[in-house]
Every structure is written in structure tokens, then in C-alpha cells.
């Protein structure tokens, strides 16, 4: 059994939570996941949210291209191809999906760490750069029509 101190445990839970959100809110049930180098993509749009507790300080993120995020927003918000989707709607949708996924992580992990607190999501374009005090993990979530990077960053104790 993995320890709460292992980043890989949090990442397994993150993938599980994202899978639940993809099924329930994006209506995709055949998402494929594979790990990539933790350096990750550069200068990429993404939404990030902190989850902080006695067991550590983590940040979870969902990165993707603007085109893929726009398709995601259309699916999430039931916006047809004939309608415009605004930048604000795209950011709002991705933030909300990130928030729901992190909420799923908290739900799955709060039994191990009852002190867990969820922050609010932030959207920006950039790169994940872990310091020597942090460890990071990145995986690709392939929804067939869109691909996203799931990002986790954890403060070393």
C-alpha cells in the first residue's frame, strides 16, 4: 500500500478523479493515460489549484492547447459548433473541471488526511518548473479528440 508521502499515490488518485469528471461531465469513458517526462510542455495554457493539508502541499493542474480547451468547453457547456465560445467561457470551463477534479482528489484522500483544504483554481499560460524543494509529475490524458496534460506538483518535506 502506497504511503500518503508518495507523490505517486496522489497522482493515481488524480487520474481516478479526472476519469470520473471526464465520464460525468465530458461524456468520455475511454480516456487513455500515459506518463511523460516531468519537464512537460512549455508556455501552455492551464488551470491550477492547490490542495493543502498536514500531509503536504500539492498543486494539481490541467494543461492543454487553446484549441483543445475550446473543444472541452463546448462539450462541458453544451455549446454547439454553430455558436461562438468566448475566451471567458473556455477559462471558466477549464477552471471548473480542474476544481471538480481536485475536489475528487480531496474526497478520495480526506480519510488519510482530514486537514485537506481545497483552494480556488487559477488559469494562466506558462510552464511547470519544479524547484529542488518540489517534485513534479505529468501524464497525458488522451480523450481521442483532445489531449491534456495532468500536472501534479508537491512540496518535499
Amino acid at each position: 500500500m502506497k504511503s500518503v508521502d508518495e507523490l505517486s499515490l496522489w497522482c493515481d488518485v488524480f487520474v481516478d478523479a479526472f476519469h470520473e469528471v471526464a465520464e460525468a461531465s465530458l461524456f468520455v469513458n475511454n480516456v487513455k493515460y500515459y506518463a511523460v517526462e516531468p519537464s512537460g510542455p512549455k508556455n501552455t495554457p492551464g488551470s491550477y489549484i492547490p490542495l493543502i493539508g498536514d500531509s503536504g502541499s500539492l498543486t494539481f493542474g490541467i494543461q492543454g492547447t487553446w484549441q483543445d480547451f475550446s473543444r472541452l468547453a463546448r462539450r462541458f457547456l453544451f455549446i454547439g459548433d454553430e455558436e461562438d465560445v468566448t475566451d471567458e467561457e473556455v477559462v471558466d470551463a477549464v477552471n471548473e473541471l480542474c476544481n471538480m477534479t481536485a475536489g475528487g482528489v480531496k474526497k478520495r484522500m480526506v480519510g488519510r488526511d482530514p486537514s485537506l483544504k481545497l483552494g480556488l483554481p487559477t488559469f494562466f499560460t506558462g510552464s511547470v518548473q519544479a524547484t529542488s524543494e518540489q517534485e513534479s509529475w505529468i501524464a497525458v490524458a488522451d480523450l481521442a479528440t483532445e489531449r491534456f496534460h495532468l500536472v501534479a506538483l508537491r512540496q518535499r518535506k
Partner: protein
Amino acid sequence: MEILITDDSKAMRMIVMRHLRQAGFDDAVFYEAGNGLEGLEMVESHDLDLILSDWNMPEMDGYEFLIQLRSRGHEVPFGFVTSENTPDMLQKARTAGAMFLIGKPFTVDIFRETLRAAGVS
């Protein structure tokens, strides 16, 4: 029926409205607020039958919104729709006077069953 949906995400307010319509509340009149403070203003100016609120919001969160609401004597049925879907949060919500807590992500069936169980129709 007049329903207030309080969430800092406009996208989520749209989705909650859509789910409510599909769950049988297609004749309801919907009002929106972006946080608890805006929600309190809406309560003072409308005769609401139900409030659905997110938990984590800037300015005033959903929990404080509920506390303020009850302290002002408003007994309108109140439920959370939130990512904060843990047993502790549910207990805290109920203690403060919430009728139910719907966790995100949700489905139309969850809305229908939860509202029916809460006696909201």
C-alpha cells in the same frame, strides 16, 4: 418556483440550470449570484423557493452565506452543489441548516433524486 443559483463560475451556473430543467424544474424562474454577498442581496429582493450554492467562492463562501441567511431569519430551503463532497462537509452543511449537498461532478438523476428526497418539487 423561484430558484437562486450561487456560484462564482458562470459556466457552472449554466450547467446547474440545465440539469435542473432536465430534472423536471423546466418551469422554474432562475436567478444567479456570483458569491454569498450577491446571494444575500438576491434573497432580500426576491421571494425564493430554493437556493443552490457552491461552497468555495470569493468574497463570501457558501457556508458563510448560509450562516448569514439563517441568522437573518430566512428559512428558504438551501442546498450545496460543490466539489467539497466529503462526509465532514456534509455534516457541517447539515448542522448549519442545509437540506442536502450535491457533489460535483453530478448527473441529472442525482439532482432529481436529491431534490425529491429533500421534498423540493
